[in-house]
């Protein structure tokens, strides 16, 4: 780690002023400290935003506003999250370990970087994300964990967050503050696909700060929602694939379906094609499979991750079938 200056933000204005002049935001440090220590990233100044306000406030109409400094553990344990947004609580609890969830903040979780091992291997691997134009050793390398949707010749990395998959499914909105004012961006639009510029991972402008995340009031499909994560060991591992699902059924037909996929792309993947295919149909495993296959029609597996297509299909069908109360 190169020498750096550390300062604790006194309030949001202080944090913004420092971020505008080039400081990196430090939340729980569970990703950034590691990136700095391994020299994947460098920073001359860290502004610690982990002690800024960390409240979870109920909004008129039943939504929630979650401050960026709220920890993953506090959010997962919150009674209203557990009751109204079960998919979010389950996704948070699927991520990392209890120790890391006690440290990691909501803002930092959104901004965490890929765990592609070639991205981390500063001395031994080429990476277009770390060094634009250098090349990508993952595309023809050990790519079991990499993307099947939305990847490019330049980058096949996945976004590692579980929380963000649930947030994409929930139509969550990320609130930002910056030198030119405040703005709000849907979580599903916050992360961007790699294209020719894999070093650009989000729509966050230089000098901007994530101030919080807003959850709309829960729809029927959100109240009846869940998250399932498939990994190489049963806990404390990043996802091979994951599925956030929600289903509302009335009179034997799907009225509302919500599906988002993790471990498949550089961003949490909202499966809108599959959702649209399900509205109005009878909630049966065959219908769920047909819908998720529509979503995966554009999937382009690499040499080592073709299994993800079948794994997403089976996981999505299992989640939706359980939610429908039907037998698999």
């Amino acid at each position, binding site marked *: 780690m190169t020498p750096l200056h*550390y300062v604790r933000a006194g309030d949001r204005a202080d944090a913004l002023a420092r971020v505008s002049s080039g400081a990196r935001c430090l939340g729980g*440090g569970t990703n950034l400290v*590691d990136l700095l220590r391994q020299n994947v990233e460098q920073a001359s100044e860290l502004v610690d935003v982990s002690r800024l306000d960390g409240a979870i406030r109920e909004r008129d109409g039943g939504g929630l506003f979650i401050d960026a400094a709220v920890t993953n553990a506090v959010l997962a344990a919150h009674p209203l999250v557990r009751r109204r947004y079960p998919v979010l609580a*389950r996704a948070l609890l699927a991520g990392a370990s209890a120790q*890391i969830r006690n440290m990691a903040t909501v803002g930092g979780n959104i901004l965490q970087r890929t765990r592609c091992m070639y991205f981390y291997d500063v001395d031994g691997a080429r990476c277009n994300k770390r060094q634009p134009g250098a090349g990508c050793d993952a595309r023809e390398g050990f790519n079991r964990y990499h993307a099947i949707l939305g990847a490019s010749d330049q980058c096949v990395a996945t976004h590692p967050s579980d929380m963000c998959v649930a947030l994409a499914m929930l139509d969550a909105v990320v609130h930002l503050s910056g030198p030119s004012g405040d703005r709000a961006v849907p979580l599903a639009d916050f992360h961007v696909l790699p294209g020719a510029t894999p070093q650009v991972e989000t729509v966050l402008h230089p000098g901007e700060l994530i101030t919080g995340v807003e959850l709309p009031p829960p729809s029927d499909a959100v109240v009846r929602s869940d998250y399932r*994560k498939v990994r190489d060991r049963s*806990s404390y591992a990043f996802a091979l694939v994951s599925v956030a699902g929600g289903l509302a059924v009335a009179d034997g037909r799907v009225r509302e379906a919500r599906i988002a996929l993790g471990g498949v792309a550089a961003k949490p993947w909202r499966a809108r094609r599959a959702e649209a295919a399900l509205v109005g149909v009878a909630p049966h495993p065959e219908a769920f499979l047909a819908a998720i296959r529509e979503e995966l029609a554009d999937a382009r597996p690499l040499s080592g991750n073709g299994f993800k297509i079948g794994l997403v299909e089976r996981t999505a069908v299992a989640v939706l079938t359980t939610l429908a109360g039907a037998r698999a």
Partner: protein
Amino acid sequence: MTIRVNDTEVPAPDDARISLLDLLREHLHLTGTKKGCDQGACGACTVLLDGNRVLSCLTLAVQAEGREVRTIEGFAGATGELHVLQRAFVEQDGLQCGYCTPGQICSAIAMAEELRRGEPSYVTPDIAAGPATVTREEIRERMSGNLCRCGAHNGIVEAIEVMLAETAA
């Protein structure tokens, strides 16, 4: 500003790059806390920060300013009697080499508090209601952030069950 470590105030380091783990081990000579991977993958460095379990390897020491740290050295009683979980680890063979043990014990003591607060885990069937019973599956999921390369997990789970039973009584 200082950091309170096992009830003693210590100054925060001038170099912001020093991890809480290195502060404990190299500067304060509290070598009970172990450095395993130094990248947040093994849990050997687990300590309590304001009562919550955290990884001291990924915590910059300056981030602990004004906070209270408790390490494995801080759990025995005033006259040296072991914490109930330390005793249970000995009795239930919760270790072989012992390298992961301080992290396991800190982690499990904090886990008991999380259970007492009724917090769910990924394997809790009803996430809104919280865990109805503390199954072995619950303990294993909640302790998954602490790896044991010797494979003493069965003894570790049994020691934790002893602690939970004794503290509930």
